[in-house]
């Protein structure tokens, strides 16, 4: 008569210390949602035994034969409690194969299935309710491959929504655009190059000397040509590098970028390059694209939206440049007549830029690390 609650008492005391007991019930659901939508679902045999009964001969052991005999029932039971939807349409699941796997706490039935979805665009959502009626402590561990998303599904939070990994163009544009802006703002070498190009934009070369440009539209036109040329050049080489058509060693590229800054700045002091403004921007700017490529590769590129990412990144760089331009050019135009501008800003400024770039060139070329930026 004392047995029933005695056992409970033992349970009560036993469990606090041993409460870190055998793992609670989890299932592992992995979905791949780009391209062919597919899933893999690992469900513990213990749980299936409790829900459906697997041990046909009731001998306390579950054999492969017994499991195989229940495969259809398992697939039907599980897939009926999983709802994957895309956009406005609910997908139907189609069993591909059923296997077995061992996890740290026992054997699991592995269900591989394909998803046929009526909508081929739109955000994905997953609704999970396996075993919640039989075990409120059960959890579905969801992972979405390719999107790097994961979630723990529970009776309190049985759904999960994912922005479409392969179709949200705007989001990709925004993300990579942001990276582009950031990279140009923190890319001092690129900024100095641009600055070196812009310094003489409000001037004109006349008879071996710099003369102030008369009218604003002329200056603006020159700036526009320079900036556009730079953008086109680095966009070209960025795409070429990202697509893998040309691969240049990073150290060489970094050193070359420094060299372009030296050249552009030096050209301001003593024009020696055989071409003007925008051609300088274009020819030297080609190198900078290779520099950006390294950044993009580090960020990771989306498989299906490479073009969008590239476009976004370039647009971001362009926007970042524009910020510099709009800050600098009006000031430069206003000051172009002054001695301060001609000698100090253009002269000493270009000299300073050249000096910094030279130091970079040495540092990057020789693989040293003495520059603070």
């Amino acid at each position, binding site marked *: 008569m004392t047995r029933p609650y005695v056992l409970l008492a033992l349970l009560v005391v036993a469990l606090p*210390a041993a409460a870190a007991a055998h793992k609670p019930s989890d299932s592992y659901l992995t979905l791949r949602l780009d391209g062919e939508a597919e899933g893999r679902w690992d469900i513990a045999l213990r749980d299936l035994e409790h829900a459906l009964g697997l041990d046909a001969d009731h001998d306390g052991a579950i054999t492969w034969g017994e499991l195989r005999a229940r495969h259809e029932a398992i697939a039907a039971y599980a897939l009926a409690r999983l709802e994957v939807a895309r956009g406005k349409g609910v997908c139907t699941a189609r069993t591909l194969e059923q296997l077995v796997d061992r996890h740290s706490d026992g054997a699991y039935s592995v269900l591989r299935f394909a998803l046929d979805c009526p909508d081929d665009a739109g955000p994905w959502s997953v609704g999970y309710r396996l075993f919640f009626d039989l075990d409120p402590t059960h959890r579905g561990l969801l992972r979405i491959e390719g999107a790097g998303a*994961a979630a723990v599904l529970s009776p309190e939070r049985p759904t999960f929504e994912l922005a479409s990994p392969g179709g949200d163009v705007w989001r990709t544009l925004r993300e990579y655009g942001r990276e582009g802006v950031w990279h140009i703002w923190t890319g001092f070498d690129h900024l100095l190059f641009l600055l070196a190009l812009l310094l003489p934009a409000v001037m004109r070369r006349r008879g071996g000397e710099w003369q102030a440009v008369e009218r604003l539209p002329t200056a603006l036109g020159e700036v526009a040509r320079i900036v556009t040329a730079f953008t086109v050049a680095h966009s070209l080489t960025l795409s070429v590098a990202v697509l893998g058509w040309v691969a240049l060693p990073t150290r060489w590229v970094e050193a070359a970028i420094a060299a372009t800054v030296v050249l552009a700045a030096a050209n301001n002091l003593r024009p020696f390059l055989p071409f003007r403004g925008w051609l300088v921007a274009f020819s030297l700017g080609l190198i900078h694209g290779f520099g950006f490529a390294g950044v993009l590769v580090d960020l990771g590129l989306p498989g299906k939206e490479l073009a969008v990412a590239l476009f976004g990144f370039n647009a971001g760089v362009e926007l970042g440049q524009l910020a510099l331009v709009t800050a600098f050019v009006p000031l430069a135009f206003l000051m172009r007549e002054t001695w301060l501008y001609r000698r100090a800003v253009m002269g000493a400024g270009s000299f300073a830029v050249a000096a910094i770039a030279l130091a970079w060139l040495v540092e990057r070329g020789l693989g040293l690390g003495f520059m603070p930026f």
Partner: protein
Amino acid sequence: MHRSLLVLVLLASAGTVAAEPFVPADDAVVLERLPSAADPELRALRERLERQPDDLRLAVGLARRYLEIGRREGDPRWAGYAQAVLAPWWDRPLPPADVLLLRATLRQNRHDFDRALADLTLVLRMDPRHAQAWLTRALILQVRGDYGAAAESCLAFQRLRPSLLATACIAGVTSLSGGAEPAYRLLARAVGAAPPTTPDRSWALTTLAEIAERLGWTDLAERHYRDALAGERDVYLLAAYADFLLDAGRPGEVMELLDGESRADALLLRRALAARRLGLPEAADLVRDLEDRFAAARLRGERTHLGAESRFTLQLLGRPAAALELALENWRLQREPIDARRVLEAARAAGDAAAARPVLDQLAATRLEDARLEPLARRPEEQP
């Protein structure tokens, strides 16, 4: 975003443990052993309940069976099954007393002590002579370090059911609050007088062993542990004896004791500790498994593992600061000597004497005698 990352890492590491799925070679290959699947009585009960899910008596009976299986197999999913069976009554503020009691037990399992105690208070209000409720209440209060109230509950239980179990209850509480020697004598006499077939003898012996261990009487403690092992070897007993052996510097015996035990994380931890001390290659696998288990528990929002995780973090990962944080978090919920030990060990390793202060104050206030804590409680200057 960070949760996502954590789940990913967890799943990735689960992936390494779970290699590629496979098709077994033969229909006869045994994939899993589940003794409960062979239980005809259990099946019959389930079928009957399925036909009448609102039958209270059936549901309570089945829930109790599930809990018993869960304890025996050390598998917490049975607690989930039990809760599901009680679903028709679970969310009511005032369910029937039997359901309340089971709900209190399940909440206690999850270390939801406040709600568990609230449920027990309701039960006792409805039925002040509900012996089980008094006992469960005593045990929860003991875990919380509220020894005065725990003693009252033990006495109430004893008045209703004088038994070896009641004596063990009183002795346990008394031994933690300054009366270790008299408690030992009381319980030793009771165990000696009880015939070998007395229910809960194993449990009483475990309690006796722990009291002896706290008094520093290691030979006696070992004798009682071994006697207890001759009876029912539940997870708690195995863990306690394993700790005794680890403290005694006998990791080899721990490996023997826990050989083949795959039930509980608590036992997995002790095996890992022993394996590490012996320099066994399997130590690395065990450590990895445990890391996964603790990460999974955090992800699920469970807080029942903090003490074990603290010990793991300190002794197997070598991170005293993190271990101290875990130990202190654990201490907020539980106040048993083992929980105090976690804080003191971590604080010592992390060189943070201030963190240990609240624990030391509590130990002084309750007049706990524990030979294992004394070296940790001494101030660093007093160390030999």
